[in-house]
Every structure is written in C-alpha cells, then in structure tokens.
C-alpha cells in the first residue's frame, strides 16, 4: 500500500533540487515494493535488481521532469520502473516459466469474492472494478500487468485468437474507465 503519510511528490521535488537525502528516503520507502513488482515481471532476482538499479538512476536523473499537476509521485516512479522492466522483457523476447497461480486466483475473483464495500472504503477502486468484469476480460489484463505480456503472448497463453484477445482487453479497459470514474 502507498504510505499515506509519505510525501512522494515532495521527495521527488527535493531530488530535482539535488537532495540526496530525499533520494535515499524514497529508496527506503519504496525499493522493496518496487523489487516485488520487478521480480514478478522479470522472474529473475538478479535481473530484477538490475532493473531496480536502472529505475532509480532514471528517477534521480529525471526528477526535474516530474510535475505534481500531472499525477502522483508514486505513480510516476512506477511508470519508470515498469517501462524499464517491459523493455527488458521485449529485449529478452520470451517469458520464463513462472507460477501464475496467483494470477489465476485473482482472475477468479468476481464481484462476490471481494468485499466491495470494504474495498470502496479503502479506496481500492481498481480491484472492485476488475471484480465487476467478466473473467475473460479480467484475466488478460492481469497477465499484462503482472507478466508484461503482449497481445500475442496473451493470445498464445490463453489459447485464444489474437483479435478476440485484443477486443476483450480493449472492452475491459473501457469498462474499467467507466467504473473508475464513479
């Protein structure tokens, strides 16, 4: 979870002014969570750490590009991490065999499986909205997020025609947009 007390935007702005202490605070605050995501995407610890290294180097160098008027500091940090992780996956060209059971489990979580009211109170809107999607639309979105798979890879993985997968994902994202507006 994002630490509500932690001022991500303020730390990034301090980084932009060359404050190495702010950079360290950011690292302490977020590096373990970021490594969790990098490892899930890349499947190899060493490569995940390399990716985290590259991401933090970019965060420091590009901190002056961050503008709080465009969005949250935490989202900005993860956009950098994901971008670098996805690049690595594309360069590598293939996916390691990983245990996807947690993705299948999340895909199985329909509206009944989740405490909608609780999630709404907690501000977990995406989970609630994903729960409202049909499983066939939810599953490919989860594979894209957690494994960084392309349309092609998802189609192969789910043994479904490419056009169908593209349509389901697009429809799923449109439905999420509608749901997230509320």
């Amino acid at each position, binding site marked *: 979870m994002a630490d509500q007390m932690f001022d991500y935007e303020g730390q990034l702005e301090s980084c932009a002014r060359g404050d190495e202490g702010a950079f360290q605070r950011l690292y302490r605050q977020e590096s373990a*969570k970021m490594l969790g995501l990098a490892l899930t995407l890349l499947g190899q610890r060493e490569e*995940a750490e390399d990716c985290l290294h590259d991401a933090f180097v970019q965060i420091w160098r590009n901190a002056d590009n961050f503008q709080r008027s*465009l969005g949250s500091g935490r989202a900005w940090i993860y956009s950098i991490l*994901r971008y670098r992780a996805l690049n690595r996956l594309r360069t590598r060209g293939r996916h390691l065999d990983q245990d996807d059971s947690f993705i299948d489990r999340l895909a199985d979580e329909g509206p009944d499986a989740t405490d909608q009211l609780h999630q709404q109170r907690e501000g977990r809107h995406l989970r609630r909205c994903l729960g409202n999607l049909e499983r066939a639309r939810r599953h490919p979105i989860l594979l894209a997020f957690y494994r960084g*798979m392309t349309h092609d890879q998802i189609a192969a993985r789910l043994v479904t025609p490419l056009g169908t997968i593209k349509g389901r994902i697009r429809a799923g994202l449109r439905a999420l*947009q509608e749901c997230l507006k509320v």
Partner: protein
Amino acid sequence: MIPEQPEERRALIGEYVLGLLESSDAAEVRELIESNQEAARMALEWEQHLLELSDELSEQTPSRALWLRIQRSLGHVPIEQMAVWRHWWDSAGLWRLTSGALALVVLLSWLSTSLEQDPALANESFTAVLQPPREAASPGWVVQVDMNGTLRLEALVDQPIPEDRSLQFWTLADPEQGPRSLGLIQPGGSVTLSADQIGVVQAGQLFELTLEPAGGSPLDRPTGEVLYIGRAVMTVGS
C-alpha cells in the same frame, strides 16, 4: 492512429501503460504522452490505479549492494563511505597513534633537518606519516608540505602491489566535500606536487593511499582498500 475521442484515447493509453502495444504503436503513444499534458495525466492515472495490483505483491528487500551500486552510478558519495571518512576524521585514536608513535618522533626530527627551508620565509609546514589503518608505529609513507605549499610524498617501505592494480593518493580536507585524488603513485617511489595541484593544506588534513583497479579508481573517490593513512601535523620551521 491515435484516436481523437477522449475515451478511446484513454483506453489506448491504458494499453500502452500495460505494455501491450507493438513497438511502433507504443512509440506513437509515448510521443503523445511526452508532448501532451492531458495524455501524460491519463497515463499517470492508469499507473495510479494499477498500483493497487502492485500492492498485492509481497515486498522483496533488495540486496545491500544495490543501494551502493545506484549511488556509484550517480556519482553520489555512499553514506557508508562518508561514515568511514568521518570515523577517521573523528578518530582520536588515530591522532594518538600517529602522534604518539615513537617512530613518528624519530621521523619528525629527521624530517626537520631534511626539509630545505628558507629561514626567511613564513614558517608553516606540515608532515603526515601514513600508516596502515589500525596499525601503530609502522609508517609506510611520509608526506611533507613545505612552506611554499609544495608537497612531497615519499615511500619509507617498498611494498609491492599486484600487477593489475594501482596505488592512488588521496586527500581529504573537508569530510563534507569528500576525498580528492592527487594521482597515481609508484609503489616504493616518491612524487612531488605543486601547491596549485594540492591546494592549501591544513593541520589535521587527511592523506591516504588506496589500492585501486589498474589506472586508478573509476570514480571520483576511493573504491579500494586503504593501505596507508595519516593526518597532517604542523611542523614549526626555524
């Protein structure tokens, strides 16, 4: 290929953020995000929502080395390294070791006679005896700064180093600024540096020799083992 209709555009940006797009389409969306604030905002909104999925994952503590690596890549002085410098800087023990060693007394008396001093000049000169860290009374090198500010570093022992390594000479006047390289040194040799090269020397200033990769430290600070270290002590000229 980028749709004008905002909701279509938002969905496409969602696909981009998820990493679903082929490289040419992805490049087009990336360009849009970089040039259009509304698109940049949409991308960060998706990213923000997707953080909920990231937060489902268990944390993985990075190895200790990673933080140091990041700092090295950015040319930041690692905090740990600063702490080491501070430790030396603050170490009263080193003072006692350095100034209390009998060898030093002998050396100083030898040095004061060997310094070529013009008695008419100002009388501030310095000496630093460099010893292996934590080893009492085993001087390996000596630094002399004469009253013109010229520094001479001279070996007292001829300790060989591995062929693929270099011996690098450093000084630290202010821990906040970090160490400064004074160049590579031949083992067992000597070197003279002008006042312009070393700057103003102060009492207590730290000098050290470290073992670095061939050609010297790849960074603007020591990366290898400290072989010899010592502080400048003022010697009063006649």
